[in-house]
C-alpha cells in the first residue's frame, strides 16, 4: 500500500524543522511514495512481473539568497540528518542569486479541489493476466503478426509538498495503463507498431479486445513500405505525433528558455505566432485529467490559461525563479504544462485528408530533431502516401523538415480532439514542408 498522508507530513515537518535549526532561512520539501505493479505478456504467455515501491524526498534550503538542494530514497532520520547538514553546508558555499526565493505567499494554492485523480480499486495480477490474455488473443489473430508484447501497470502515488511559509499539501493519484506492441512480417519487410491506453480510473480503460485489434491493424498496414522521392508536400500528422509538436511549443514558451534567451519564441507575447484559427489551452482542473493538478511543483495555484488566442501568443509558462527574472508573476507552471491542448479545428478528419490531392500521413517520427533555439525541425518519419483522400501505400526511410516559425503559421486542425494523453492535439495538417527520400 502507498504510504498515507500522515507519514509523509511527519517526514516533511522533520526536514523543515531540522533545516531551520541548522541555519536555513527558508526551505521546501517534497516527499513522495509510488507503488506500481506491472505484468508483461509476450506471445500470449506471462513474460515478466515487476513490483516497485519507491520512496523519495527532495529538500531545498535557502540561506538568504543562497540555495542548494539534496534528494534521497533513504528516509531514515539518521540519513536525513547527514544529508540536510550537507545541504546547509553546500548552501553556505554557493554564491547568491538575487532571484532565489520561495514563491510569493499570496500565490500559493489555498484550496485543494477533488479532481477525481485517485481510484482506490486494486487490480490483482490474475486480473491483469486475464486482460492481457484477451488483448494478446485479439492482437495475434492475423497470421502476419509474429510477435506481441503487452503490458498492464497499476500505479498508486501519494505526495506532500511543504515549505517554511506554511504551505503543506498533497494528494493521491492513480493510473492504470495497458499497452501492446506488435511485430508483423511479410516476405519483404518486418514492421512494429503499438497502441496504448492510460486512465486514472480502471473502469475507463480501453477494452482489451479493441486495444489488441488496433495495435495489430496499425502494424499490418505498415508492411512492404516504399521510399519516395524528395519533394515539397503537405504533411498530415497523426494525433500521436501532432501532440509532440504542441509539446515543442510548450518548451519554447517556458520561462526558463525565455529568460535565458534560448527560444525562437522570445519576445513574441501578443504577436501572431499561429494562424488565426488556432487556440491553445492549458487546463489543470479537468476531472480525471492525466495532467490535472491542484498546484504546481512549488505550491503555486494553477488557473486555466488560454496560451494562444486566435493565433496570438498570450502567456509564457512561468515559475517563481524565472518569473522574478522576467519581472512577471508565476502562473503556476513550474514543472511545465498540465492538460495542454489545441482547440478543435472546424473540418472533419476526412476533409483534412481530402484537402490536398497528394499528402503524407505521418504515424511515427524518430530522432531528436527539434531545435527550440532556431526553430529548425528535421526528423526521420514513417507513414502513408495519401492521394485524393485515400491511403495508398506505406512509406519509410524518409525525413521531414521545416522551421516551426513557418510550420506554426500553416497549421490546419481537424475536429477530432480526444483526451488520451496529458498533451493532446486533433489531427494536424501542415503545408509546405520538405520530404527527403530517394
Amino acid at each position, binding site marked *: 500500500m502507498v504510504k498515507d498522508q500522515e507519514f509523509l507530513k511527519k517526514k516533511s515537518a522533520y526536514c523543515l524543522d531540522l533545516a531551520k535549526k541548522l541555519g536555513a532561512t527558508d526551505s521546501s520539501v517534497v516527499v513522495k511514495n509510488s507503488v506500481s505493479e506491472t505484468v508483461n505478456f509476450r506471445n500470449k504467455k506471462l513474460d515478466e512481473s515487476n513490483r516497485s515501491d519507491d520512496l523519495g524526498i527532495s529538500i531545498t534550503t535557502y540561506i538568504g539568497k543562497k540555495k542548494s538542494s539534496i534528494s534521497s530514497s*533513504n528516509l531514515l532520520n539518521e540519513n536525513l540528518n547527514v544529508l540536510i547538514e550537507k*545541504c546547509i553546508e553546500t548552501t553556505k558555499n554557493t554564491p547568491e542569486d538575487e532571484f532565489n526565493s520561495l514563491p510569493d505567499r499570496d500565490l500559493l494554492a489555498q484550496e485543494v479541489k477533488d479532481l477525481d485523480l485517485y481510484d482506490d480499486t486494486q487490480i490483482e495480477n490474475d486480473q491483469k493476466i486475464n486482460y492481457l490474455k484477451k488483448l494478446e488473443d485479439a492482437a495475434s489473430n492475423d497470421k502476419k503478426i509474429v510477435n506481441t508484447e503487452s503490458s498492464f501497470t497499476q500505479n498508486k502515488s501519494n505526495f506532500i509538498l511543504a515549505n517554511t511559509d506554511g504551505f503543506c499539501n498533497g494528494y493521491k493519484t492513480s493510473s492504470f495503463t495497458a499497452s501492446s506492441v506488435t511485430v508483423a512480417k511479410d516476405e519483404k519487410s518486418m514492421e512494429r507498431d503499438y497502441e496504448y491506453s492510460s486512465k486514472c480510473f480502471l473502469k475507463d480503460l480501453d477494452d482489451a479486445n479493441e486495444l489488441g485489434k488496433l495495435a495489430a491493424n496499425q502494424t499490418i498496414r505498415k508492411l512492404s513500405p516504399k521510399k519516395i522521392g524528395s519533394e515539397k508536400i503537405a504533411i498530415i500528422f497523426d494525433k500521436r505525433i501532432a501532440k509532440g509538436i504542441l509539446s515543442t511549443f510548450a518548451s519554447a514558451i517556458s520561462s526558463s528558455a525565455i529568460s535565458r*534567451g*534560448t527560444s525562437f519564441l522570445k519576445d513574441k507575447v501578443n504577436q501572431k505566432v499561429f494562424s488565426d484559427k488556432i487556440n491553445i489551452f492549458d487546463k489543470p482542473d479537468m476531472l480525471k485529467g492525466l495532467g490535472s493538478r491542484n498546484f504546481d511543483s512549488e505550491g503555486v495555484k494553477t488557473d486555466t490559461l488560454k496560451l494562444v488566442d486566435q493565433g496570438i501568443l498570450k502567456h509564457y509558462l512561468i515559475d517563481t525563479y524565472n518569473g522574478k527574472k522576467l519581472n512577471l508573476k508565476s502562473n503556476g507552471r513550474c514543472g511545465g504544462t498540465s492538460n495542454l491542448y489545441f482547440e478543435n479545428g472546424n473540418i472533419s478528419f476526412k476533409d483534412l485528408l481530402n484537402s490536398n490531392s497528394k499528402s503524407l500521413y505521418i504515424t511515427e517520427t*524518430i530522432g531528436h530533431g527539434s531545435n527550440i533555439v532556431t526553430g529548425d525541425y528535421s*526528423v*526521420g518519419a514513417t507513414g502513408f502516401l495519401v492521394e485524393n483522400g485515400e491511403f495508398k501505400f506505406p512509406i519509410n*526511410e524518409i*525525413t521531414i*523538415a521545416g522551421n516551426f516559425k513557418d510550420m506554426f503559421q500553416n497549421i490546419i486542425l481537424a475536429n477530432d480532439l480526444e483526451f488520451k494523453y496529458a498533451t493532446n492535439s486533433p489531427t494536424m495538417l501542415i503545408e509546405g514542408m520538405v520530404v527527403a527520400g530517394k
Partner: protein
Amino acid sequence: MSNFFEKSDLSRSEAENIISETLQKCDDGELYLENSKSESILLDDNKIKNSSYNSDLGFGFRAISDEVVAYSHSNEISKNSLKQSSENLKSTLKSVKGTYNYEIAKSNKKYYENINPIEQKSLNEKIKILNDVNNYLRSKSDKVKQVTANFLGEQKSVEIIRSGGETLSDVRPLIRFNVSVMLEKKGRKETGVYGVGGRQSYDTYLKDDNWKSVCDEALRIASVNLESKPAPAGEMKVVLGPGWPAILIHEAVGHGLEGDFNRKKTSAFHNLMGQKVASEGVTIIDDGTIDNRRGSLTIDDEGTPTEKTVLIENGILKNFMQDRLNARLMKTRSTGSGRRENYRHIVLPRMRNTMMLSGNHTQEEMIKSVDKGIFAVSFGGGQVDITSGKFVFNCTEAYEIVNGKIGSPIKGATLIGDGPSILKEVSMVGNDMMMDPGIGTCGKAGQGVPVGVAQPSILINKMTVGGTKL
C-alpha cells in the same frame, strides 16, 4: 565499499537464506544492492543556478524461471521488505521446476579505481572553474549571449548476491563536464555543445586548464553553425568524421545486435548470424574492458566480468551481446553485457564501448572522391527502430562537399538509413580511429546507461539527408 547490512535489521546471512530459499528451483536470479551518491553543479546565465546532491539506496530482487522474469524492488533494506519482495516473486512464479545455474565467470581485472570523484574536489574549486568557464567564453567574443556549464559526478557501489551466497561487487566512479554556448549575430542564434568525461577524477580531465579546450571546441561548433546554410534534402554520399559520429554504429547495428531482440526475433538482424552484413574491412567490437572509459565496467550488473566482444569481423556477423537470461535461452554464454540503469530496473543486454576499428584509407582520400555529398563531423543524438532497421542521427556540425572539396557549413539535419544495409554501403574505412570524448548515454526501454563509441572516418555511398533544400 558499502556495507548494505550495517544499519539494517536484516543480517547478511538472513538475506542469503531468503535469497537461496526464494530461488530454489528457479533457473537464475539474484539480489542486487545499490548505493549511489551523485552531484550536479550547474552554471547558467552568469549564475550558479543549481548545486544538488543525491543519495540513492535500494535493492532489486529477481527470480527467473524459463523465460519468465519476476522482479521486485524497494528502497528499504529490511527484513520485512525483502520478505515482501520474496513473496511477490513466488506469487508470480507459482510452479517452478528449474535448476539454478550457480556458474558465473570470474576475473581479477579492474578497469577503474575505487574513488569517489565527488569528494576529490571541493565545491568551491568546482564553482571557481564554472565561473572561469563563463568569464573565459564571454571574453572571447561579444557574440556570446549564453553560457551553460556543469559538473556531474557519481560513485555507485553495487553488490550482487546469488543463490548459495556467492557475492560479487563493484564500485564505479563516473564524471562528466559539459559546456554549451549560444552565439548571436544579426538576430540569428546558434549553439555549440562539447563535453568530456569518464571513470576518473574531475582533475584528470580538467588539469592544466584543459577546460579551456572544451570551451574552445563548443565555441568553434557554434561559430561554424552561425555561418551555416540550409542543408540539402535527398540521397547522397556522406563522409563521417572519426570519434563521436560512431553513434551511427551504435544506432544502425549496435541495438539490433542485442541478445533480447534476436531471441525474440524482432531485430532486423535475427537471421543473419554468420552472414555478410558489412563491406569487407569493416570490423565492429563492443568492449567493456578499456581503462577508465565511460562505457567500461569491471563486472556487469549480473556480476559477469565484461569482455571485448567481436560483433562483426571483416563484414561477417559473429556475435550478439548477451546477458545471462538471453544467453541461456539462446544456448550461448553471457558476454558481460547485462546492464541496468539502477536497482529500479530489470537487466537488459546493452552496449558498453562500441567501436569500428581502423582501415587504411585517409579522410582526405574520402573527401576527394565525392562529387556531391556532405561531411558530418559532430552529432547530437540518434534513434533506431530495431524491427524495420531504420535509424536516424542528428548532425550538429556538417559541411557540403562539392567536387572533392569541403564547402560551406550546413544547418543541423537528420540523416536516415537502413541498419542492415548501411554497412554494405561503406566504401572506405579510415586509418584514424578515435574514441568519443566520454559523454554518451544510451536509452532503451526507459533506462539510460553510460556508453562509449569510437570509429575512424568512413565514406558511405548513399544515405538520405533530411535538409530543406531541394
